């Protein structure tokens, strides 16, 4: 690890897009969604507030798209999903801001508030650890200028050590070596994206699958909706499809009690519009928010 490569560039990593009048984030190796969000917020010299969260949504989505377009950066599926979770929450916040303001009446408003507060709290928490990391980095760097004395024992003291009991046979020793040299198994939570090229999973297709299941069997929960697949990608895309369908009011969620089962059923008023999904991602991504 070279010192330079791991250091954040001191200069402003973003470029100002003059024609659009807004910010555009250059591709930079951020440490996940919270890092990007914090950067976007501080760049606008805003406090971390609900307003800021909604206002940086487009830039956040644009950054995510650019990362994916560049084909690097987001190497791990669960990392991508973290970004998507944050992005979808931001989208909901923004959507709520665009709606006419009325009284907080229905449950959806409260759910949205809850989602916002949770995101807000996680962001604050991340900010605290980022500060702590700064302290650690500073100490780590300062301490590199000191070296502890750690030298081998002078021969007369080494000679005092009790005679080593070392009666392990060559065969046993080879077994030990073999065990030590076998690569440690990769941690189980790591998921590669290499299989993505083979599979063509789209929000449109998954939305159709969901519609078909709901038409046939009525109200289902998420577990039932993904019971036919064990593939992570399908699960994730189906989840995203659900969010989109909800946005388009194709489906409704119902939850009997807090933390209870989330039940999903068709709203029955309109069909899912695949074109709108693309429009909303393509269209809003690069546009500046002039509010």
């Amino acid at each position, binding site marked *: *690890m*070279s*010192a330079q490569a*791991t*250091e*954040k560039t001191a200069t402003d990593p973003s470029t100002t897009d003059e024609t659009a009048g807004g910010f555009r984030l250059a591709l930079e190796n951020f*440490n*996940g*969604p*919270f*890092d990007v969000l914090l950067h976007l917020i501080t760049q606008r010299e805003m406090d971390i507030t609900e307003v800021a969260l909604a206002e940086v949504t487009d830039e956040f989505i644009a950054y995510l798209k650019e990362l994916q377009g560049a084909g690097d950066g987001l190497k*791990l599926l*669960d*990392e991508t999903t*973290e970004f998507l979770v*944050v992005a979808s929450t931001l989208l909901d916040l923004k959507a709520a801001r665009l709606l006419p303001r009325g009284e907080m009446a229905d449950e959806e408003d409260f759910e949205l508030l809850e989602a916002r507060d*949770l995101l807000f*709290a*996680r962001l*604050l*928490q*991340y*900010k*605290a*650890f*980022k*500060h*702590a*990391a*700064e*302290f*650690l*980095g500073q*100490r*780590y*760097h*300062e*301490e*590199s*200028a*000191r*070296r*502890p*004395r*750690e*030298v081998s*024992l*002078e021969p007369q*003291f080494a000679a005092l050590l009790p005679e080593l009991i070392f009666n392990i046979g060559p065969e046993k020793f080879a077994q030990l070596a073999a065990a030590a040299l076998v690569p440690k198994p*990769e*941690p189980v*939570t*790591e998921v590669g994206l290499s299989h993505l090229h083979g599979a063509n999973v789209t929000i449109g297709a998954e939305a159709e699958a969901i519609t078909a299941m709901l038409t046939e069997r009525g109200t289902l929960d998420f577990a039932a909706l993904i019971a036919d697949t064990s593939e992570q990608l399908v699960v994730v895309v189906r989840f995203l499809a659900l969010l989109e369908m909800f946005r388009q009011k194709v489906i409704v969620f119902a939850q009997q009690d807090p933390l209870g089962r989330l039940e999903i059923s068709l709203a029955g008023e309109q069909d899912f519009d695949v074109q709108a999904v693309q429009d909303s991602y393509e269209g809003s991504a690069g546009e500046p928010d002039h509010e």
Partner: protein
Amino acid sequence: MSEIAPIDELPGGLKSGLEAVLMVADSPVSTARLAEIFELPVARIATTLEELATEYDGKDRPRGFELRRVASGWRFYTRTDYADFVSSYVLDGQTARLSQAALETLAVIAYRQPVSRGRISAIRGVNVDSVVRTLLTRGLITEYPEMGDGGATLYQTTEYFLERLGLGTLEELPALSPYLPGVADLESLDSATYDD
């Protein structure tokens, strides 16, 4: 223990005795251990170590070395002023920096230990598997002897972490709370919502 200890009969006395022992030590030595070796009360050992440290800092001149208290023990270190010369003698990875990702992960482990990878991921919003491996290899963290809920491996910081950061104990880490205005109980927040 008011009678004269063996070390007091030697020309250099306790100061020189301490210097000799610390010169062969390859990890910090506690005052308790030194008290046993010299058959003297801990208090006298502690006072003499403080005197030695002050002496090295500048009685005649600032010495090339300093005596510091880290990770609950005392140890000789080179003085930072001479870092350039020391590093041109010793070539190794000591000066390699930790990446931002590694530092953030280390911070979460330091403040939340023992903690699982899933929990760290939830706080940082990214997968931390490879960063955790780097920290293990560098000896800054280690596996906690017991498993967490659901058999997850937990991690904690090491003695070397304290030494490497020049800290006496974990309590010397600055409090997280000043950075968290108005958020009373994050502890429950991240575990309740994002547990693995």
